């Protein structure tokens, strides 16, 4: 709602000077910053996973995080989903503070964000339909009928309209992941976080899920933050690709540039190893 007040908040000289922050990316006139991490540090014991990280994502953009495992990509998604808390720094979503913030505010801001997990994490004790309607009914206050209509539409979108009354365990991995995507979208989030969503799938099921996500990326204005090892997929859907190494963004840019002619030696090494 406070769209007018938005742009004036963070884009001050002080923040733009922060190192080689990828925040500088497209960011042209008319684009509105939706997510901003400033000086975010996350440690697990002695290990620093994220080291004073700065980056921002504009509304409607599709950003892919790539890099070797353990480089902190997934941690960023988990921080945004409030599954873990940073040790230092601030996280802002849609102009509102997500961290540090009082519990109540954190809960409100979190509703703007949805997440799809590597292991699907569907609720095995509920039918497919209940999986999708549970949160819209209890969190958004939709009536059961409204929520079911919405769920059926989404199941249609993900190609599983006939699986309403089935338990998740009776579905293939690819089908489960498509239900999980529908479940996340049912909350109408502004941001969709995708955490290696095809890594746990049998190879022949990967394409279906990626095609679905391509569709969603193309046909909606949802902002996507994606951690993936599927470089072709990253190339197809991304507006911007961030290369991570050891808790820092070492290079960022549009996919043509990053996949075609990367500046950084480490990026080149990584890409030649995975492509």
């Amino acid at each position, binding site marked *: 709602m406070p769209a007018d007040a938005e742009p004036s908040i963070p884009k001050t000289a002080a923040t733009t000077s922060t190192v080689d922050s990828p925040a500088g990316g497209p960011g042209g006139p008319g684009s509105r910053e939706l997510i901003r991490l400033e000086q975010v540090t996350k440690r697990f014991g002695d290990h620093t996973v994220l080291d004073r990280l700065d980056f921002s994502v504009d509304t409607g953009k599709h950003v892919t995080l790539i890099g070797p495992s353990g480089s902190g990509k997934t941690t960023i998604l988990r921080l945004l*989903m*409030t*599954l873990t808390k940073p040790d230092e720094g601030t996280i802002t979503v849609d102009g509102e503070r997500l961290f540090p913030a009082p519990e109540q505010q954190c*809960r409100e801001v*979190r*509703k703007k*964000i*949805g*997440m799809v*997990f590597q*292991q699907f*994490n*569907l*609720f*095995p*004790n*509920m039918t497919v339909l209940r999986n999708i309607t*549970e*949160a819209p009914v*209890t*969190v958004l206050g939709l009536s059961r009928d409204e929520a079911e209509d919405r769920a059926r539409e989404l199941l249609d979108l993900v190609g599983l309209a006939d699986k309403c009354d089935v338990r998740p365990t009776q579905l293939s991995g690819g089908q489960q992941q498509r239900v999980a995507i529908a*479940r*996340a979208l049912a*909350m109408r989030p502004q941001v969709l976080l995708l955490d290696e969503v095809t890594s746990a799938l049998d190879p022949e099921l990967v394409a279906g899920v990626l095609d679905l996500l391509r569709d969603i990326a193309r046909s909606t204005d949802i902002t996507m933050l994606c951690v993936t090892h599927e470089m072709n997929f990253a190339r197809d859907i991304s507006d911007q690709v961030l290369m991570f190494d050891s808790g820092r963004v070492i290079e960022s840019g549009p996919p043509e540039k990053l996949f075609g002619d990367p500046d950084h030696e480490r990026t080149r090494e990584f890409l030649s190893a995975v492509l």
Partner: protein
Amino acid sequence: MNWDWSTLGDFLPLFGHGVLVTLQALVLGALIAFALGLVWALAQRSPLKVVRWPVTAVTEFVRNTPLLVQLFFIFYVLPEWGLTLSALATGVIGLGLHYSTYTAEVYRAGIDGVPAGQWEAATALSLPRSRTWAAVILPQALRRVTPALGNYVIAMLKDSPMLMTIGVLEMLGQARQFGSRTFQMNEPIVVVGIAFVLIAYPASLLLRALERRLAR
């Protein structure tokens, strides 16, 4: 061994009463153990130390003292403080309280066994904590622990003769009373022993079937 079928005939009506009392104590005791154990298990996950700490102290204390002592305490000591309970009520509460400290551990394991991803999915959907427990975690945890809870019901059945010591005339209590009146101990004791097998064995078969069903 002396065996007199007519003695058996004399004992059977009393035995019938005993069976009913045993089953009553078992069912009510189990209900208390199931409910109270869940309360303990949830309280032990409270973020508040003032909740966690006393609950841990109470459950450890109860689990590590004999049921018989607890029964005597409730029956003979509590009246000193103005709380007088009937023998059967004492037995039910004693059994229930004692076994609730075991079911609490069962629930704890069941709750811990729900994958972290379920909590994370609930957070990602912004489900409130209470709803996460009620709709996601507990249904999965309870399913896992049903067989283990059943095993404790069988254990409770086998501990139920302890209620005899505070004067509850359950199966064994009836047998002993009958024996000390008639000096015929053989028949009633054998009948009671068989009765325990006839209740416990089918129950454990039922549990195994349930376990297989739930494992699917």
